[in-house]
């Protein structure tokens, strides 16, 4: 009996570790789970990523928030004149991926994600126009939109390393060994993967909602990463409301800070122009709260201030104004992203730029 119990325990835990430690295993679990509906199906991102953090029954939206493609009728008939390199985040990747048919006059798209740690060197093609689009959501912008951060994603690792001094190189060397060992032994998202595998089932949902609703109604709190809008209709990432957070829509951005940010953008533009790109376009996606204006307090208008700054030399896609028209229809109530309609507004604006 004891051997049987030990065998079952070992197989169950070892299988969990094996599957959750491999990308292929997680892909299989994820696809399988999301293909099912009901008790054995997944519930985590089905109703919005912020619902998946809070499990507040009120915010369980009925429509499917899986990021589906923009309808084919909205795609562009292309003349293959340029390559588009995008350094961006889930606001674009979840909707457009590397499909060139979304973009005007683009033959090939290469998408590099900010959250992929290893640098991917991008080399502009000689026979075509090369456009580099650097995009980030407002809340992450200050940490990402600087030359070092961009180079860390787009330049070869050696090129980045050559700028380090000897002490930094030694530290870098040991950190790489350490990281290498860690990566080979522990999957980076192991904890989240195990949680997904064990607890992301529809049958857990009533219990999760019970806890989520109880915490809100009795203790007055939700997951620390999430905040509820003043009008109680939207969930936001808490960091976008906290004025002490540099990525918040309500943080104080002084003129000096703004100037520094603008010079960073100019430096990025000049560096990549010198590396052979014909155009460098920036895009800052506004935090939902900057558009929805539910909090009744003035925000810092960061994107508009950068765009109109006299020192700013580049091109900036700013969809804030367009998104603000009938704003509530452009965002999900329980997701940190815009919806398909919001994404389409941004895309139209980019395409107008590409056609110019």
């Amino acid at each position, binding site marked *: 009996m004891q*051997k049987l*119990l030990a*065998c079952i325990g070992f197989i169950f*835990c070892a299988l969990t570790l094996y599957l959750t430690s491999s990308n292929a295993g997680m892909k299989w679990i994820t696809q399988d789970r999301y293909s099912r509906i009901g008790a054995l199906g997944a519930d985590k991102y089905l109703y919005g990523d912020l619902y998946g953090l809070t499990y507040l029954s009120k915010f369980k939206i009925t429509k499917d928030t899986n990021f589906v493609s923009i309808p084919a009728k909205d795609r562009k008939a292309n003349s293959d004149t340029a390559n588009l390199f995008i350094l961006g985040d889930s606001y674009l990747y979840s909707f457009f991926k590397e499909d060139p048919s979304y973009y005007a006059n683009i033959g090939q798209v290469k998408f590099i994600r900010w959250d992929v740690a290893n640098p991917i060197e991008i080399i502009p093609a000689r026979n075509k126009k090369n456009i580099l689009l650097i995009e980030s959501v407002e809340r992450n912008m200050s940490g990402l939109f600087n030359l070092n951060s961009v180079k860390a994603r787009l330049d070869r690792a050696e090129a980045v390393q050559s700028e380090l001094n000897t002490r930094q190189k030694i530290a870098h060397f040991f950190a790489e060994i*350490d990281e290498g060992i860690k990566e080979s032994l522990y999957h980076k998202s192991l*904890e989240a993967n195990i949680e997904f595998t064990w607890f992301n089932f529809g049958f857990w949902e009533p219990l999760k909602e019970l806890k989520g609703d109880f915490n809100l109604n009795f203790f007055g709190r939700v997951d*620390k990463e999430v905040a509820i809008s003043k009008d109680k209709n939207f969930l936001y990432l808490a960091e976008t409301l906290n004025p002490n957070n540099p990525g918040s829509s309500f943080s104080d951005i002084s003129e000096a800070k703004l100037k520094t940010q603008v010079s960073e953008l100019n430096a990025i533009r000049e560096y990549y122009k010198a590396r052979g790109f014909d155009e460098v376009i920036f895009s800052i996606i506004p935090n939902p709260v900057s558009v929805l204006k539910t909090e009744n307090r003035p925000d810092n208008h960061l994107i508009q201030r950068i765009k109109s700054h006299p020192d700013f030399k580049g091109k900036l896609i700013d969809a804030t104004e367009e998104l603000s028209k009938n704003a509530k229809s452009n965002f999900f109530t329980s997701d940190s992203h815009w919806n398909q309609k919001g994404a389409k507004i941004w895309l139209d604006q980019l395409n107008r730029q590409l056609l110019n």
Partner: protein
Amino acid sequence: MVFNSLQFLVFFGIVTSAYFLLAHKYRWALLLVASCYFYMAFVPIYLGILGLTIVIDYFAGIYLERFQGVAKKIFLGCSLLANLGVLAIFKYYFFFTDNFNFLASYFSIPIHFPVLNFLLPIGLSFHTFQAMSYTIEVYRGNQKAERNFGIYSLYVMFYPQLVAGPIERPQNLIHQFYEKHVWDADRVKLGLLQMMQGFFKKVVIADRLSMVVDPAYANLSNQSSLNLIIASIFYSFQIYCDFSGYSDIAIGASKVMGFKLMNNFNAPYTAKSIPDFWRRWHISLSTWFKDYVYFSLGGNRVSVPRWYINIMIVFILSGFWHGASWNFVIWGALHGLFQLMGLTLNRIFPKLAADQRKSAGGIWLYRLFTFLLVTIAWVFFRIPKFGDIQIYFDQLTHGSILDPISLAFNTNELLFSILLIVGLYLYDFKRDKIKMDSVQLFWPIISGLAFLIYFFGVFNLKQFIYFQF
């Protein structure tokens, strides 16, 4: 790898079931590999540091047994030097150079040591002290030198107590690695129950209290007196539940596999005096200092002034063991001073002390006073900067105690936290009567605790406070 993670549950399931599936002769190897895997989840490269001290102490142990006289002392010295050297470099180098450079600059001495701030290997002080106790015990002849390098390595690295104790003596642990532990359903259940209690203490009580404590201590200048009093009392229970929760999980996980680790806590806040508190709090460390430092200095078998000095030395060292920062030194010194004050008062008013201890009211007064002193000392433990300590006491003494505006906690959260603290205290107080480790009630207790942990737990993967030491 932190205990309060799903990774740990998977790891524990694999290691424990493999332990019972494997033949006895391979079990130590399994535990050693598992312990390395467990440790490397933090900073893998630091396994090398641990490995270095293990090699030194292993050979030191063998040579300590082989030689006598001066040579024996030299080997002990080398072993202690290696262990303390690692501690000095990784834990105390920054503290010493920083303070030295400050003094040098103050007195205009043109010497400046380079300041290197190493990332502290997790649990360094714990496994270093465990390793030191091995060589000291071999030196004293209380423990035979371990010939099996793997077993010795496992003694230092045994994963349940590797990063935050209990700090085991070799006489208690090494022989257990040779013993064949068979599956005993009752023992397994008891181990799981103790683990579950540890999880409850950590994620339901400690991490919940930290939601009140952390913001208050992070923004001292905006707190009212009442807030600070609440935060300080809560911190006393947070650190208790955090650390004793870790110990419960460590002891329980070991128990499931058949290992018996020493008890590390015994209802410390029911203590009637500071010496009583130290017999109940972090027992493995206080007995370590008693055995290897206090007695070596002569203990109480010396003149009264020297005895007092011995007490102060032990407590200051104990503070310094916790962290390379003045606030820990002050925390240790305060406990030393409280001890001395108690001893002195008992000597001056022996009858009064004896009378008080006889009455129920007197006993509770002692308990309350002891808790108050311990809580005051925790303030120094919790706040690393002198400037912030000053702000704390300024706010405490000058702020309005009844300022309701600044009571920034949700009332229900506050009441629930108080309820948990009262429950914990009653449980500690009546531990013998409340049977939470009953094998017969295993299923109701464990499923009840599991539900409470899920429903009231705060899951933020917050590290255990004592990991930093």
